[in-house]
């Protein structure tokens, strides 16, 4: 709105000025008007997502009479009107027109402002299409990054498939599953598994259900009882199918009891009240909290601690991790939780994928360290070669 207002003000001002000068002495208007541009060109930006033109122009006349530039665009269709792209200072000779349509060509018109605000004759470009390219050059570092990550993953998957040992550091929380289930078996008490309080669209719930598959299989092998109260009906269905499959693979399908996997309520604290009460009454020997948790994390884990259960938690919610770490025997922290399925299954594809992602993370961490070092050195020695190196490094990363 301000640009448009300014334009009207300049046009009105220009008319008043012209009329005044004519009344005073019949001086020619063209003598004080700004010179129009002599050459205007619009170029489609290569290797981009489209919608961008670089407009440049030249003035052969006296540039001192020019106080600014008005840049306008118009789609090459019937009835289209000129739309202001921007207003620029007198020294400008180039502008980037963005947010243009990919479908039609555009004409760009460049008009000069004179000292009193009067406008010169505008000069238009030929119709130019700002078309979208197949490959966006600015995203090249990202493409290279994806290639590197994918190569790492594929190499490690192939390596794992070929039988080369892939070492994954021990995750105590997952190694302790046998211990927890064994404890429940020796004590003749049930195992409690909570897959968070979110629905199946939450990635943490999916990871939790994956761990449930392993815990249920171990429970089936030990012939222990596993209870899975859920706060979402879809989670209940997923949990039932997972546990059933685990019992089947352990060869104890007859021991599977779907009634032990039940839906309680969607209400956060209604669910917590039920689970806490159940824990106090039944005193499960092992409690698993694997999924997305919020305020209920401490209530559940403290209740479990008070009844002497072995507790294993896993969540990606960083705000809940301290509570789980303090109250539980073992805690899967963030990435460990998502790595659980490959760690537990030991399948070459999953292991290779995990290892490949780790390699990519290592490369990313190395890039961060190099960036931090260069930025620090550049700030300490602004006159040295480091600022240039930092700029180059930023360019390489595409930032």
């Amino acid at each position, binding site marked *: 709105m301000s640009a448009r207002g300014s334009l009207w003000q300049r046009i009105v001002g220009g008319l008043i000025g012209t009329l005044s000068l004519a009344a005073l002495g019949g001086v020619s208007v063209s003598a004080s008007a700004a010179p129009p541009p002599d050459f205007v060109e619009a170029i489609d930006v290569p290797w981009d997502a489209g919608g961008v033109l670089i407009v440049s122009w030249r003035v052969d006349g006296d540039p001192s009479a020019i106080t600014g530039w008005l840049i306008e665009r118009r789609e090459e269709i019937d009835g289209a009107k000129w739309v202001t792209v921007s207003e620029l200072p007198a020294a400008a000779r180039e502008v980037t027109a963005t947010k243009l349509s990919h479908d039609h060509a555009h004409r760009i018109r460049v008009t000069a402002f004179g000292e009193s605000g009067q406008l010169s004759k505008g000069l238009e470009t030929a119709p130019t299409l700002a078309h979208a390219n197949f490959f966006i050059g600015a995203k090249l570092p990202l493409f290279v990054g994806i290639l590197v990550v994918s190569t790492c993953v594929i190499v490690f998957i192939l390596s794992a498939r070929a039988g080369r040992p892939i070492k994954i550091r021990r995750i105590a929380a997952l190694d302790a599953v046998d211990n927890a289930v064994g404890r429940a078996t020796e004590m003749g008490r049930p195992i409690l598994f909570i897959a968070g309080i979110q629905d199946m669209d939450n990635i943490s719930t999916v990871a939790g259900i994956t761990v449930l598959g392993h815990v249920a299989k171990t429970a089936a092998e030990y012939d222990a009882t596993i209870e899975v109260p859920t706060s979402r009906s879809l989670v209940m269905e997923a949990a039932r199918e997972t546990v059933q499959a685990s019992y089947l693979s352990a060869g104890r399908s007859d021991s599977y009891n779907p009634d032990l996997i039940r839906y309680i309520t969607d209400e956060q604290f209604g669910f917590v009240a039920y689970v806490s009460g159940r824990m106090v009454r039944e005193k499960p020997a092992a409690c698993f909290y694997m999924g997305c948790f919020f305020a209920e994390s401490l209530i559940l884990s403290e209740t479990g601690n008070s009844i002497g259960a072995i507790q294993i938690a896993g969540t990606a919610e960083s705000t809940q991790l*301290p509570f789980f770490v303090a109250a539980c025997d073992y805690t899967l922290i963030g990435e460990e939780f998502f790595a659980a399925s490959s760690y537990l299954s030991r399948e070459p594809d999953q292991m290779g994928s995990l290892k490949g992602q780790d390699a990519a993370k290592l490369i990313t961490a190395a890039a961060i360290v190099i960036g931090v070092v260069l930025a620090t050195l550049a700030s300490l020695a602004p006159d040295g070669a480091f600022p240039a190196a930092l700029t180059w490094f930023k360019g390489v990363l595409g930032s």
Partner: protein
Amino acid sequence: MRIVATDCGSTTTKAILIEERDGVFRQTFRGEAPTTVEEPFADVTLGVTNSVTELQELSGYRLIADDGTIIRRRSQSDADGCDLYISTSSAGGGLQMMVAGVVREMTAESAKRAALGAGAIVMDTIASNDRRKPHEQIQRIRELRPDMVLVSGGTDGGDTKKVIELAELIAPARPRPRFGGEYKLPLIFAGNKEARGAITRCFGGEGFALSIVENLRPTLEQENLGPARERIHDVFLEHVMAHAPGYDRLMSWANAPIMPTPGAVGDILQTIARGRGINVVGVDIGGATTDMFSVFGGVFNRTVSANLGMSYSISNVCAEAGMDSVLRWVHLDMDERELRNRVKNKMIRPTTIPQSLEALVFEQAVSREALRLAFIQHKAFATTLKGVQQQRTVGDAFSQDAVGKSLVDPMAIDLMVASGGVLSHAPRMEQTALMMIDAFEPEGFTQIAKDSIFMMPHLGVLASVNARAAMEVFERDCLILLGWCVAPKGEVRAGRPALEFTLSGGPSGGNAEVAKGQLVGGEMRLVRFPLGHSGKLEVRPEKGLDVGAGPGKPVKRTIEGGTVGVIIDARGRPLKLPTSPSVRRSAVAGWQKALEIYL
């Protein structure tokens, strides 16, 4: 005071005489005779009488009466006879047991620990999660012929269902006892007290002699092995020994209950560890099996590696370790085909001994691997309790230790005791010391000793009757102190400085400098420091290497001399031998030369 002690082994019965002279107990004479448990004699006391007769001949005291019994002194002034007679036995394969528990890593493991600690050989462990189907478990139980069965399972007030399921597997399987079928198989129940009624109903009928003791895991946080071990000893005497030929007479002669030999060895090591407040690792490598004992922080553990030995099991050692692993300790060129023939010959002729240097080098290389594998098995078994609740703080976020951590810490070993033919009868003491170092890879300061004449079983029983006598004989006559091993923990760089040391002392201690030097990575050095000497050894490791006080920190300790001296081992831990065969051979030859192993 005069004490006669015998150990009835599978092949020989060994007798020793212990006398109190000048207020100190010393072992004075030793006799040996073939064991006579098997036909045609079928009476263990004949072998005992023969071995004690040898003692009688050597000592000049009359110890055997005309009727073949051991003469007892009525007073200290009596010239003939002894004041105490004690015995251990491993004749006829020792005590063989089958154990069962609900979860393999929990109550079944505790049951195994109780059985092994009592000196038994565990033939098999049955558990509800041992990945065998019930019919396979029943088949296995029927195949075994144990002397005794130990059943555990469930905490007190805990699971009863699976305990009863276990009982219902064992009872109908009717395992037959080893010594004939006329006596009832002893079965000890040490599980959930609430399951006792059902267990009594299950095993109360014919075929089993049921005895019930306290639960060996009353809670998962607590292990109570004492009652089960004591009951195993009692049952061993009442049932097993009573049915072995001649043992009823032998028991009537003895002043203390006859113990299984490994149980007695375990007892004396525990007594020593407790008395001196140290951590001890003991090994007895035999022809068929290798027994490992350890006491760490007062917790005793014993394992029997049933297929690791130097004659009957030598083939299995080579198969399990791999010939490459065996030959990495050899500095000579050897033909692998010929070695395989040698291994098989040793297996079928177990009493043969090496006749050439090459044969000796090879046998000692095999022993290193047997000991190494036995130690790995021991480390895996000697762990903290599993299924225990952990207490955490937020600070533990990134250091969540798993349960079931091994108790065996090479840095914490204070004393290693070697026994068994290949170690005890090695031509040079240096060979025994190096075999122990290579196999167990001790870290920091570790004293090495060997059992002079395998006297530990006798002293184990003696400790239960006269602890002072047992300790004095153990320290003066039983153990031959070989010396010390000082080895930094951490990776060393070949040829780069690893540590500096200064040894001072002498026959009466003092500060006289004995030796001083610097070792580079991969080097070993022997400093002679004779028996009876004592002094201070200061070791200053390089950055990143630890000799007990932390990486790079010096340690100064008081040490005693030994028949070998002080071995400073700068090969780093874990021990990594060069991969190139020629480099490895020259390195092994270098170590052997430095330690004067094969002159």
